[in-house]
Every structure is written in structure tokens, then in C-alpha cells.
């Protein structure tokens, strides 16, 4: 198959899966939260409430997009584009099997970190251009939080890179298969926890949702957004949830592989295994979201700078020593 037709197919597959995954996670979120809150959740929309996320999304398409008069229009209008482009771009490196991957980049993990940092600009400009005090504070909080937690995210990955000696995501999974254990057991347990905390903060989910903090800042940097642009922020959040959980399972949980399964059949079970692991991790984050209140802004920054970053640096040092000495 020629490169271009292959690329076209891959793009189309991602085009189809990304929104489906977002909707699937939305459903998991509404049903999961309902289960945790002793209520039935959506029941009446379509197949026992199962097409509820689709109905919600469809609703937003028909809603008026209000652009307030004081906003900086081009910046305001394009702010969601930064976020969704960065998030969809990350699909490139998620491996469903050694061959079922959009592209296995040599710099895979580094690429992930570089691209994911772009969405900060989208959030900050969204907050600024809204000309609204709540948006501005939300945007600043969001930017402060995204940059503070990007570091632990980056640094926790370094341990994995040291162990795997490669930055390619497929290479990392293959290394884990070679090891026989996923990295979360083989030395990177702390890194995994840091990664999940930092990823939660990057996604601005409770208990790190003060940029949105609806009881303080009404809707944070999204206050002035309505209609389709709000939906784009919303959908990006869930695509991001999927991507981050998929990356976490790839880096730490053995990705598309489960020990004892025959590796030659990985193309068949790989996608299922990875999506399964992703949804389990996502459910973990959903359970956390519905159990905790949110931190305060200063507590959040303290946690990042005084705990997570030093600990992840320590993790790097320990991993490096283990690698060199043994």
C-alpha cells in the first residue's frame, strides 16, 4: 500500500475513533458518576440512555454561539482550535499493536510532551480574549496549573525512557514485553503515580479543576464560550482523557500486550487490550473526580513544586543509578 493511501486510511480511522472515544468516555463519566451518587443517570435518551452523549453533542451543534461584544474576536474564535489540534495530534503515537499505530516516531515521548504543551496557549488566550474577569482568572489559573504539572509529567516519563533506552512508544512497549513485566511493576511505580496525578491536573479534572471551578469562577476560562466552541473544549477534554490514559497504559502498563498472550496475535487483541486498559484508567480518574473536592490554587502549586517535581527528579536519579550500576 502506498504511503499516501495508508495515511488517508489512518487519518480517517482516527477521525472516526477520536469522537467515538470521547463520547464513550462521556458515557462512562455520566454513568459512573450516577453510580457513585446512587442515582440512575441518563435513562430516557435512546437505547436506555446510551446515546445520551451523542444527543448532548448534537444539541450543541444547534445552539447559538454567542460572541460577546468586548472579546478579541480572532483570538477568542480560534482559542479552541489550539486545544483540539494539540490533543488530536497526540493520536499519532498511540500504538494499538506494533504495526497498528498511526506513526511510530523515533522521538515519540518527546513529541508527546512538545505537542501537549501547545494547548496551554489555547487556554491562556481563551481566558484573556474573553474580556471577562472570571475568564481571565480562570485562564491564568489554567496556565499556571498546566505549566506546573507539565514538569512532573515530563520528568516522570524520563524514568521510563532510561529503562527502555528508547523514546518510541512501540519500542517502550516491546521493551516491557521483553522484560516480562510492565514498567509500573518494574521500577516505575512512583513515576506512574506522578504521571497520573500530573495528567489529571493537565486535564483540569477534579481535584485539580480550579481553572474551571464552577463554584468560584462560574466556568473559568470557558465562561464566555457557548455553543459549538464550548463543545470543542468539552470534547477535547474527553479526547485528552483518552489520549492521556492510553499513553499511561502504553508507558507504564504494558500497552497493547498482556503477559501470557501470544505475541504473534497482537494485531487482533492489541487494540482491545489497550482500549480496555485505557478505560480502566479513565474510570479510576472518574472515580477520583466524583470523590474529591478541589484543591486551592496555592495548595496545587505547592504540591507540584515541593512534592511532585523533587520526587520525580529523585525517581530519575534512582532509576539512572540502577541502570548504570546493574
Amino acid at each position, binding site marked *: 500500500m502506498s504511503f499516501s493511501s495508508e495515511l488517508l486510511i489512518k487519518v480517517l480511522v482516527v477521525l472516526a475513533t477520536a469522537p467515538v472515544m470521547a463520547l464513550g468516555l462521556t458515557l462512562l463519566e455520566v454513568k459512573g458518576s450516577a453510580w457513585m451518587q446512587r442515582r440512575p443517570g441518563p435513562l430516557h435518551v435512546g437505547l436506555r440512555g446510551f446515546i445520551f452523549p451523542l444527543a448532548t453533542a448534537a444539541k450543541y451543534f444547534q445552539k447559538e454561539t454567542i460572541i460577546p461584544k468586548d472579546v*478579541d474576536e480572532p483570538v477568542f474564535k480560534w482559542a479552541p482550535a489550539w486545544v483540539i489540534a494539540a490533543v488530536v495530534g497526540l493520536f499519532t503515537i498511540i500504538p494499538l499493536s506494533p504495526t497498528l499505530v498511526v506513526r511510530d516516531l*523515533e*522521538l515519540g515521548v*518527546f513529541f508527546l510532551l512538545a505537542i501537549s504543551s501547545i494547548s*496551554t496557549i489555547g487556554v491562556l*488566550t481563551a481566558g484573556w480574549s474573553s474580556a471577562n474577569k472570571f475568564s481571565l482568572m480562570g485562564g491564568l489559573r489554567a496556565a499556571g496549573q498546566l505549566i506546573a504539572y507539565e514538569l512532573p509529567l515530563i520528568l516522570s516519563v524520563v524514568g521510563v525512557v532510561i529503562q527502555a533506552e528508547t523514546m518510541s512508544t512501540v519500542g517502550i512497549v516491546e521493551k516491557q514485553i521483553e522484560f516480562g513485566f510492565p514498567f509500573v511493576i518494574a521500577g516505575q511505580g512512583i513515576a506512574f503515580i506522578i504521571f497520573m496525578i500530573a495528567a489529571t491536573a493537565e486535564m483540569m479534572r477534579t481535584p485539580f479543576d480550579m481553572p474551571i471551578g464552577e463554584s468560584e469562577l462560574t466556568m473559568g476560562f470557558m465562561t464566555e464560550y457557548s455553543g459549538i466552541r464550548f463543545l470543542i473544549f468539552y470534547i477535547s477534554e474527553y479526547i485528552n482523557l483518552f489520549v492521556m490514559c492510553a499513553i499511561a497504559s502504553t508507558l507504564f502498563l504494558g500497552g497493547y500486550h498482556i503477559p501470557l498472550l501470544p505475541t504473534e496475535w497482537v494485531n487482533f487483541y492489541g487494540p482491545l487490550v489497550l482500549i480496555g486498559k485505557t478505560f480502566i484508567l479513565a474510570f479510576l480518574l472518574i472515580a477520583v473526580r466524583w470523590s474529591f473536592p478541589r484543591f486551592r490554587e496555592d495548595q496545587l502549586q505547592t504540591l507540584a513544586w515541593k512534592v511532585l517535581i523533587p520526587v520525580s527528579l529523585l525517581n530519575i536519579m534512582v532509576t539512572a543509578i540502577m541502570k548504570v550500576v546493574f
Partner: protein
Amino acid sequence: MEAIDIFSYFLLLLLLLSGIKVVTTSNVIHAAIFLVFTLATTAILFILLSAEFVALVLVLVYIGAVIVLFLFGVMITRAPLGPNAELDNDQNKIFATLISISIFGIFTYILLQTFDSTVVIREGTSTKLLGEILLSRFVFPFELVSFVLLGALIGGITLARKDNALMDEDQI
């Protein structure tokens, strides 16, 4: 001419256009965003010049961090939303145009004289190799960088802190 060359010319054009927008737009935030475009085209150009690691470093450090710092700076210095008429020194414009055009002219002349038809070679760069060189051949500057960064950190904190050093020590 290869397709990749045409694309390169297009990129260079884009680079210059966004660069010009950075210095001519009357809105501070727009200028920062145009700088992002400039940097993004530069990053693509780097990739075409087979320097992928540098390109990603550019994205990670510049777009992901330095621009955010700029946006913070703009917001802290209370730039107004929307166009700002007082952004430029109007009386300087002609003078500045003359200077920059003459610099450009001299450079172009020299460049045309020096590099006649030298061709860029697009070949892969191994990041692993880059790391190895960085940590062996360039180990001294590498360590020096940490001191520079430490100095920048301490200096920045001292300057930006609320109870400024100026007030603490120099005031009696």
C-alpha cells in the same frame, strides 16, 4: 525542483510574513501569537533540514514555555485588550525601516557573494548520537548552562519578587 523545495520556499514566505506581523501588529497578544506562527514555521523548517530534535525543542521550550511567559508578562504589564495605538514610536518608523533594509541589503549581498550554489543535504539525525555528542564533546558548555539557568532563576526571582531587593537592602 522537488516538491519539498517548493514547500520550503512557501515556508520561508510564511516565516517572513508572520515575522513582519509580529513587529507591525498593533495588538500585543496578536504579536505574541504571530511569534508562535513564526516559531512553528521555523520548527517545520528545522524538520525539513533534518533537525527534528531541535524542532521539537523549539516547540517545547519556545511555544510551550517562553510564549506562555510572554503572555504572562503582557498580562502583568496590563496591556489593553484590542489594538493599542501607543505601541509604536511613529517618529522612528522611517529611520528604522531604512536601517533594517540596509542591514538586510548588506547581508544579502554578502550571502550572495559567499554561498553561491551550496546545497543543503537532508539526511537523518540520530537523537541518540546528538545526546552522546552533547554529553561528551560539549560537556563543559552543558554544565555551564546549568549555572546560567540557575543565575537566570535567581535573578528573575529577585527582580520579580514583591518585596524587591531594591527596597530591602538599599533603603535605610
